[in-house]
């Protein structure tokens, strides 16, 4: 597979002129995904039926949705900035490619199927399936992200 090479010099990126901007972005990224995935997981626990059972899935999803969105916004702002520090490295990294595909699928899934099923408090079987797929998608994104550095 041919290596992608964008004619871009990372040295021109102001994010690269100091030691701590990169780790700071990573920390924002981590806190962001902890909030986003944590709140999604809370709804998934209810959909699967093993936790958060004192309220309906629809109520839980409605209450937690702003926090999920906030977390995702933090992730989607810090992520591209991190990417900008060395685009060629990331573009040629299989783990990164996997992560972005999984992320797109997960976000699409979250705001279509997941939202609809949670809001309609449908059957336990449907809910469990939707919840398990949701957890699996988000965990694979975390794994993909981590393996970028180890690929």
């Amino acid at each position, binding site marked *: 597979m041919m290596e992608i090479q964008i004619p871009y010099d990372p040295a021109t990126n102001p994010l690269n002129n100091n*030691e701590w901007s990169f780790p700071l972005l990573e*920390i924002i990224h981590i806190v962001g995904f902890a909030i986003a995935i944590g709140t999604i997981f809370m709804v998934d626990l209810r959909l699967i039926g093993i936790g958060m059972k004192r309220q309906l899935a629809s109520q839980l999803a409605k209450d937690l949705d702003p926090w999920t969105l906030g*977390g995702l916004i933090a992730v989607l702002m810090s992520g591209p900035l991190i990417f900008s520090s060395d685009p060629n490295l990331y573009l040629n990294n299989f783990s990164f490619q996997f992560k972005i595909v999984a992320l797109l699928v997960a976000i699409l899934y979250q705001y279509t199927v997941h939202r609809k099923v949670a809001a309609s408090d449908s059957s336990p079987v449907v809910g469990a399936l939707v919840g398990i797929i949701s957890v699996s998608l988000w965990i694979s994104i975390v794994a993909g992200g981590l393996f970028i*550095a180890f690929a």
Partner: protein
Amino acid sequence: MTALRESALVYPIIMTGHLTGMALFGGMICITDMRLLGWAMRDTPITDVIEQLRVWKQIGFVLVVGCGAMLLGSKAELYYYNPFYWTKMALLLLVGIHALAFRNVYSNPTAFPGKAKVAACLSLLIWVGLVTAGRSIAYWDVPDNLTPIYGSNSPTTHHTRK
């Protein structure tokens, strides 16, 4: 422990467990604190939020700390010198002290509204501090006198910009 350090795959897999634990359960800690502050899930009674999340946060804690212990075990000689690692351990100790000091808040949240808010703020600070210190571990510059023995730092430092 040597297998952990020398296998190319085991260390990142354990690290993935560490991060996955943070992803799944970190948000729960945040929502608990946000509920105590009255900023999230306001329609749900505080006791319901705290009681339902309790066992899951405990599971998450065991997962994250368990993976952390394994990561530490594989690099203990290097972490011994790393100030960020020790900061993280101090913060972990603070987590325990916090849990002890505010145990009556978490067992009976409605009875201590003011203290609950203090507990929540401190909790958020400690956990964000933990993530910060933890991430910074990889960015510690290994002193020259240590590199011959321990090699350079973890693979993630190739992102370090000077």
